[in-house]
């Protein structure tokens, strides 16, 4: 590192960052907050790392897909899930923060369910992980309750005109997951193969499960 270059860079520090390695204003702002919270002993860095790792890599829609697939193959489990979802999910080791009080709503030919949180970002973390940006953003939060068919169309979902739509606004600590209908032509699939058809959006209600691929 040549000193003259350092000096030149220093002159530019008062302006916009011009190196890819430099931190954005938001990175700097968050770093300051984190530094002081750690320095003063309010936050254990190990806890911070574990929280991020857990919700970045461990908790996600694969958990919900397991629950759905089990409900598709096991009628007794499905009945327990619809009657009292929280203990039923615990049977599969699924539960925890953001899913303390789960409600599962089943799609039928007559009614399609759609989940939203108009007031913030309530979302069933243990089954779906952290919510996608669109779920937390004004277009979805404002429109899901007033024009759900138009919203579904933007997700490429067009329901039969005679299939009612039921929108669940998550305004308290109950967390909703949609149990989509099992796709046709999946009679031969085992539970793991069924789980692979279950998309995140199908458990929010903004999508439908994948169709089974052609058999090999």
């Amino acid at each position, binding site marked *: 590192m040549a000193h003259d270059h350092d000096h030149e860079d220093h002159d530019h520090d008062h302006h916009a960052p011009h190196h890819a390695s430099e931190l954005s204003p*938001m*990175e700097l702002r*968050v*770093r*300051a*907050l*984190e*530094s*002081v*919270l750690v*320095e*003063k002993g*309010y*936050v*254990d860095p190990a*806890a*911070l*790392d*574990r929280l*991020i790792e*857990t919700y*970045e890599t461990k908790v996600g829609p694969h958990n919900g897909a397991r629950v759905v697939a089990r409900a598709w193959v096991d009628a007794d489990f499905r009945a327990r899930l619809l009657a009292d979802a929280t203990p039923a999910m615990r049977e599969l080791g699924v*539960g*925890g*923060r*953001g*899913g303390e*009080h789960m409600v599962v709503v089943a799609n039928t030919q007559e009614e399609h369910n759609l989940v939203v949180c*108009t*007031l*913030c970002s309530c979302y069933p973390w*243990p089954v779906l992980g*952290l919510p*996608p*940006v*669109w779920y937390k953003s*004004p*277009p*979805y939060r*404002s*429109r899901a*309750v*007033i024009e*759900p*068919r138009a*919203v579904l169309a*933007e*997700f490429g979902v067009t329901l039969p*005109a*005679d299939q*009612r*739509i*039921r*929108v*669940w*606004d998550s*305004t*308290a*600590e*109950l967390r909703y997951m949609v149990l989509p209908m099992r796709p046709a032509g999946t009679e031969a699939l085992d539970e793991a193969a069924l789980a692979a058809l279950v998309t995140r959006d199908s458990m929010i209600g903004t999508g439908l499960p994948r169709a089974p691929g052609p058999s090999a």
Partner: protein
Amino acid sequence: MNGGQDLGGMHGFGPVAPEADEPRFHAAWEKRVFGLAMAMGLSGTWNLDASRSAREALPPGEYLTSSYYAIWLKALESQVQAHGLVTPEELATGRGFVPAAPVKRVLRGEEVDPLFARGFPSDRPVPDPARFTVGDRVRARIVNPVGHTRLPRYVRGRTGRIEAVHGGFVFPDTNAQFAGEAPQWLYTVRFAARDLWGDQAEAGHAVSVNAFESYLEPAEPESAA
């Protein structure tokens, strides 16, 4: 409060923008904000309802133009200062200048898995019997609290039907203000879209909210005819 967070039924935000293969976080700082908010939430200094209240307290223009983790960051910055944990100078510099204030708990790394796998239930016993039963017609009260509430504007004054009685739960309106959990009965109330949105409601559409007992009052039977 009638703030920027109460979005149900608003127009003008444009189409929903799903993102293919969306990453869990869109920037390194978002991860840190998420983790900090979770960790500080367990310090026992405030509660989840108070955190929601702090986010909603952003002026609507700012709320609506901030990304979600930016909203969390701004709320967390205001909370740590309001509760005397961090001074403005410390926040500006990222360095501690005054001794730490006592907190009820510091979440340790090894506590994350067991605590978050168990969760933090908010159901509580309520001594009095539930006022409403399944099938009752109820009206959401016309109220405009300046503090935190979980009754969205689009149902206030509208009539629906009790569809489920869920038991007692922490009442967010008081809890957010550190005025006690004051648990109340929680219900699912189903509204026909036509009763919310009038003639422009889409056909065959209903909306449910979860409503605390004090949000509701009895409504007259559907038709006397």
